[in-house]
């Protein structure tokens, strides 16, 4: 691509055709030819365009259909709402769009297409950088920008003036018989930016992949007022999402202790600030055995704790009521389990606190005398007969609970929610209601067998997230590079400028110094071509024309730029 026809700017982003493709076509045969054509087809601009459309289209269900990775509960609800459609969508991977093979196929093809297109362009661009600016077209009048004037100066003088004015341009000067031409080019950084942008996208994808391979993310609920969590294994977490190469045996150790949690609310009930005062111990502290020293950190919503490639976030908070059960034989058990907020505006919470009766030796008796205190907790109760919460802050707590007795199913080997009891067991009679009561702190209820259940008070819990993603900085770096490349490739204009200097009279008006005291006159013809899609060269060309031709200007015009 040395002499592009002036009327057609070359493509800004991708090369559509290979120049020497036609001559070799006859020799191609069989599989090799097919592979070659496939490759060419894959790396063509049109294919890239189609793949981009497909990518956009394929990502859309990720926003419109609930995703397992974001909210599994919504997916279950979807199954309930559309019992016929949902299994089909599930088969097609619509609930895990961004892990679906077809989504991966699209972006991988796009990346292959990108590499196949960008690599040859790097070579081409490197060659273009070394080559001299193209020769001046014979007829400058055909160019989109053109001007002509006759000046009272020698060819040499004007050539010097042109060179000075075009500093910063790549220039080449050539002789054409008596005339002299200057070709100049500017804006090679446009292509550099373009290439940097596309290559950065690959780097960004690699950074993402690293994160998905060796990163992990886990959530854990910790009681405020002294609760501790240590990152020693997956079992410590309430939920955990591991990267493909993470088996949970090699987590970076550290410990946090939540000393205090404070939430500040506006009178409307809207939260204004959350803050958890935590202490932490790093891996070094633990290795050195400094286990009694906690480094303080104020954990807030927008300021996670960052240590050794790990980040600790404050994600949420809620309340945990404390109940003390006194059994008829005088044995006491105290339970404190987090209840989950069901109304984010008032933090009305629900949950179940479960007890096993101590001091029993008979397995059957032990199994069937379990207790559960389950119901609702209002941090600021309305005070009515039916407990509702009117404010999210802990001002006037009250619980409305059922006390259930019987077999909770704690021993049957199946996991169960910590927030509820198995409703099936209530219906089957394995669990029976022993009391239904509203309690304020300090109040107690006495069951018919003499057991008392006392509501002692409420503690706060915070939900922490621990994240580890070693690919994150790579992604950031390449994102910044991509942005710079993008800005360069869209703002820099690739353009060409030519000058032809023709002496008006005299056979000795060669491209060289004129006679000492001749009154030289030179026809100066200039032409310009923007090689990229963008208009806007006209203004610059007009300025150049004004500077070089001055008031002698005869005719400047801007042809159609395309």
């Amino acid at each position, binding site marked *: 691509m040395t002499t592009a026809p002036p009327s057609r700017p070359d493509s800004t982003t991708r090369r559509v055709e290979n120049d020497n493709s036609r001559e070799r076509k006859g020799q191609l045969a069989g599989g090799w030819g097919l592979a070659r054509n496939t490759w060419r087809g894959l790396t063509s601009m049109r294919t890239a365009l189609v793949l981009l459309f497909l990518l956009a289209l394929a990502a*859309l269900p990720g926003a419109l259909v609930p995703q397992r990775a974001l909210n599994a509960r919504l997916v279950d609800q979807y199954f309930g709402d559309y019992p016929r459609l949902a299994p089909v969508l599930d088969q097609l991977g619509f609930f895990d769009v961004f892990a679906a093979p077809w989504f991966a196929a699209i972006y991988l093809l796009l990346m292959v297409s990108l590499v196949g297109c960008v690599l040859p362009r790097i070579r081409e661009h490197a060659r273009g950088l070394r080559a001299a600016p193209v020769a001046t077209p014979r007829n400058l009048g*055909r160019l989109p920008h053109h001007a002509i004037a006759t000046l009272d100066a020698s060819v040499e003088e004007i050539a010097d003036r042109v060179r000075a004015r075009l500093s910063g341009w790549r220039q080449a000067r050539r002789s054409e018989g008596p005339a002299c031409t200057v070709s100049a080019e500017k804006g090679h950084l446009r292509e550099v930016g373009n290439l940097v942008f596309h290559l950065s996208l690959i780097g960004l994808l690699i950074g993402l992949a690293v994160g998905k391979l060796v990163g992990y993310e886990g959530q854990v609920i910790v009681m405020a007022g002294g609760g501790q969590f240590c990152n020693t294994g997956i079992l410590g977490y309430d939920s955990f999402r591991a990267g493909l190469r993470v088996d949970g045996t090699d987590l970076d150790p550290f410990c946090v202790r939540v000393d205090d949690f404070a939430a500040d609310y506006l009178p409307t009930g809207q939260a204004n600030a959350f803050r958890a005062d935590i202490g932490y111990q790093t891996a070094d502290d633990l290795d050195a055995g400094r286990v009694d020293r906690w480094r303080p950190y104020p954990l807030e919503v927008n300021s996670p704790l960052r240590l050794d490639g790990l980040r600790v976030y404050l994600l949420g908070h809620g309340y945990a009521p404390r109940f003390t059960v006194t059994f008829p034989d005088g044995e006491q058990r105290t339970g404190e389990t987090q209840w989950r907020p069901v109304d984010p505006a008032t933090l009305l919470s629900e949950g179940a606190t479960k007890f096993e009766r101590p001091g029993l030796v008979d397995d059957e008796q032990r199994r069937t005398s379990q207790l559960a205190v389950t119901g609702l907790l209002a941090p600021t109760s309305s005070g009515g007969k039916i407990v509702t919460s009117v404010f999210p802050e802990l001002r006037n707590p009250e619980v409305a609970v059922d006390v259930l007795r019987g077999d909770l199913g704690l021993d049957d080997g199946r996991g169960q929610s910590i927030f509820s009891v198995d409703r099936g067991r209530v219906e089957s009679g394995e669990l029976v209601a022993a009391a239904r009561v509203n309690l304020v702190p300090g109040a107690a209820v006495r069951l018919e067998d003499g057991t008392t259940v006392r509501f002692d008070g409420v503690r706060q819990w915070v939900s922490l997230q621990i994240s580890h993603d070693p690919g994150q900085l790579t992604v950031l770096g390449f994102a910044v590079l991509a942005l710079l490349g993008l800005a360069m490739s869209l703002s820099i204009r690739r353009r060409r400028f030519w000058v032809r200097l023709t002496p008006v009279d005299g056979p000795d008006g060669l491209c060289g110094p004129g006679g000492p005291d001749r009154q030289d006159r030179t026809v100066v013809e200039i032409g310009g071509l923007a090689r990229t899609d963008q208009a806007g060269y006209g203004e610059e060309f007009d300025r150049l024309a004004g500077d070089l031709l001055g008031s002698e200007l005869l005719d400047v015009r801007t042809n159609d730029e395309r």
Partner: protein
Amino acid sequence: MSVDPILALLSDRLLMATVGVYVLAIALLSAAYAAARSIPGARPADAAAPADTTARTALSHTPTVRTALSHTPSVRTGRSYSEGAGGEARSCSYSGGAGGGARSRSYSGGARSRPERLGRMGVALAALGVGLHAGSLVARGLATGRWPLGNMYEFTSAICLAAVVAWLVVLRRSPGLRPVGPFVLLPVVVLLFLAGTVLYAQAAPVQPALQSYWLVVHVTTICLSSGMLLVAGVASLLYLLRRSGLGAGLAERLPAADVLDRLAYRVTIVAFPIYTFAVMAGAIWAEAAWGRFWGWDPKETVAFVAWVVYAAYLHARATAGWRTGGAAWINVAGFAVIAFNLFFINMVVAGLHSYAGI
């Protein structure tokens, strides 16, 4: 952090005034548009003279000046320069348009024609509207003591402001685009009306997750780029309208098709990097607030889709067979996705971004 009720009220009143002024501006610009159409001889014979209305109306007074500097041979060979001889909108001068504007200003020393006067008043009103509009946002920021982009009402308003400002900036560079004005202001007024009624939110502080300087960076750039992309989308729509020949009576006074196309392109290539930056800033913020920089939250997903659509637009501009009509459709689709992301995703689909909703 209490809210100043007087400033909050002032902000609301200013927004109402803004809508009124914009409506007036639309009326004046439309009147100018209609008046220019009805003046016989005010326009040269060719259907799509590149010059703007300003230059056109001035043309008849001073034809001689134009010979010195002209940018419009409609014949490509450009043997010599001929004044607007027939032909469809091939020639153009979006680039030369800036110069054209400068030139036309010099003609307008004498009495201006009626459409010209109406048009100027319309633009002046739009500029006044921008002042009131900005005042409304500033007053809200002062009233609440935070950056005034904390809910849908506020950022819909900011997007509209960005769109009108973008149009005025473009107009300064090429006055020929004045007829595009009503088509930009119309969606702006509709959006502002929706913002003031359906989306309206009392001035209030924002919740903890939004208390970050990234709000300033992320939401401001998103609003700025969305506003600019609105202008680009409108330009592409008008381009398609102009090209299709539908509504010829309405479209005939619009700038030439390729002037509109170039407007769309130039605005998009400025807005696209800003949008890219805004999405990246959002990712950085998400890393600090939600524990991951990208999690395919519905809002993020659709932002990604919009980004890909605009990438497709830029690629289409360099693909044979897609350069004109196809690219314009993609650009329109791009803005449709942005609008979908703003309204549908915020109001219907629940996600982490939902707290910014209504």
